[in-house]
């Protein structure tokens, strides 16, 4: 059980966080680079000290104005991004390093994470996937009350990813906070997501809640939506770059407009006809995703369109091509800010 309510002054901004993670909960922490995610983990593990506020682990105050419990006594399992394995020790020696580990538990975990065949290998000789599994196993073996994972499956082979995910989905009893860049992983592993931007929690909720009403451009980009801040004046909203978007409902003041990628149609020639928003753009990137193709478009507005494979082939699109993108006013999701 983890309760944090405080702030930490950093070089470029102040990290402010108020969050609570229960014993059986797994929470994912997402955010752009440099937003303070890793620092937040360090705060909880005791490698940083709060400037204001307090932190409790299982109702014990470990960090406050007049208390600071050293990381060695906090019982927190911290797996940093670069694993920090003890290269000169074997895999088994790494895992059983913590004085809180028990032989039985260590054997069980070695099996669970499929490390039996390399348990006597020097940790420095392990592959990326093996290292990550060892690091996580080592942290779990220390019998922690809180588990902190910094990008546990980034860049890993499929097998290692699966083993780690399997453990995280089935384990019980330890409050887990994990940092990831992959919203799909976050959605599959955790009941709750926290989004951290420039040191502040901008949104916190279930994957569905975030998908349905993303609070910031970053949240929206996570769920694969186009997010456009603008100022509305009746049925027309103007973006910061001067692009006019036609809305389906009259509204006044600053708004956030979401353009679902699937509602964007692409043309080689400028289409004429029903009231639609029509913009010219250049293709900057093409990504095939299953049955569809995601196309990143740059122009007066930067956005992403998702079209079917068929449509893609008919249009014969290439990177650098100039196309027309059109979408109906009724497809837009407009929320006042």
């Amino acid at each position: 059980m983890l309760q944090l309510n405080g702030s930490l002054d950093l070089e470029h901004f102040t990290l402010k966080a108020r969050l609570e993670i229960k014993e059986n909960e797994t929470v994912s922490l997402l955010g752009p680079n440099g937003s303070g995610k890793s620092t937040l983990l360090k705060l909880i593990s005791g490698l940083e000290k709060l400037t204001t506020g307090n932190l409790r682990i299982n109702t014990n105050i470990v960090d406050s104005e007049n208390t600071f419990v050293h990381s060695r006594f906090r019982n927190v399992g911290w797996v940093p991004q670069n694993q920090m394995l003890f290269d000169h020790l074997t895999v088994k020696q790494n895992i059983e390093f913590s004085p809180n580990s028990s032989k039985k538990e260590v054997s069980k975990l070695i099996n669970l994470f499929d490390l039996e065949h390399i348990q006597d290998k020097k940790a420095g000789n392990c592959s990326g996937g093996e290292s990550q599994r060892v690091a996580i196993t080592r942290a779990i073996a220390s019998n922690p009350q809180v588990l902190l994972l910094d990008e546990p499956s980034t860049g890993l082979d499929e097998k290692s990813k699966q083993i780690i995910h399997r453990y995280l989905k089935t384990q019980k009893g330890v409050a887990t906070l994990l940092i990831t860049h992959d919203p799909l992983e976050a959605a599959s592993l955790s009941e709750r997501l926290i989004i951290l931007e420039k040191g502040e929690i901008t949104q916190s909720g279930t994957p569905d809640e975030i998908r349905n009403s993303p609070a910031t451009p970053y949240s929206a980009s996570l769920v694969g939506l186009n997010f456009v801040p603008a100022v509305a004046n009746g049925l027309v909203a103007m973006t910061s770059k001067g692009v006019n978007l036609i809305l389906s409902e009259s509204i006044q003041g600053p708004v956030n407009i979401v353009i679902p990628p699937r509602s964007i149609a692409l043309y080689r020639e400028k289409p004429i006809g029903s009231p639609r928003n029509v913009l010219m753009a250049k293709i900057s990137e093409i990504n095939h995703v299953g049955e569809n193709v995601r196309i990143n478009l740059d122009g007066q507005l930067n956005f992403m369109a998702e079209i079917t494979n068929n449509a893609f082939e008919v249009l014969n699109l290439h990177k650098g091509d100039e196309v027309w993108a059109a979408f109906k006013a009724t497809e837009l999701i407009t929320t006042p800010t």
Partner: protein
Amino acid sequence: MNRIPKAVVLIATIAILFLLSPLIGLLQRMPWSELANLLGSDVILDAFLLSLFVSFSAALVVFVFGIPIAWFLARSNFSFMKLLRAVVLLPMVLPPVVGGTALLFAFGRQGFLGKWLNDWFGLTLPFTTAGSVMAAVFVSMPFFVVAVESAFRSISEDLEKTAETLGASSSKIFLKITLPRIFPSILAGLALSWARALGEFGATITFAGNMPGETQTLPLAIFLALETNPEAALALSLVMLVTSLAILIPFRDQWLPSR
């Protein structure tokens, strides 16, 4: 080889020849035919054994005390660290005879510490083997500390912090993580300081004096022999040369700062 500029090769060759010439001169003058006779003498045996004892004892002391000093210098943030480091490195720049004289001022019979030791415990440090070891420790400690301090610095603090989050005590981390990782540097530092201790002359002769069997190490014996028995001096020099090479060659790989 083709990628090295010609000028670099030329300068390196000149430097190597310069360093080799005295060695060649030494070997060329060696009285090879009488070596067997000379080497059997008591004086040489005494000096040889004493040098081994003093240099290895000094290396042991340097190891035990040098590691904490190096760790302290590498990890602490006190403002007087710069001053402390200068003090630790002082023997490196001090002429050895000055070092020996300074040791007398501290530990000689009239020295501020030596006087107390003499009055209260009847202990005299000059003119004893212990004195030779002290002089050797004084001049060779900085070499070890420099090598080990930079090794400590190269270990990421995050590694030690990760070990802390696992609940390990400071001593466990120090013994099981930190020391093993800097082990090669410790060996290199020890080899360097041992070699310095072996060759130590100025501070030894000033502080510990010159007495066969007690304080007459190989360098002192050589210096004396140069004036009274040049052939013995050559034989002694050969003994020193062989001894140094025997210890340093096995450590040649540790000189490289890789790992």
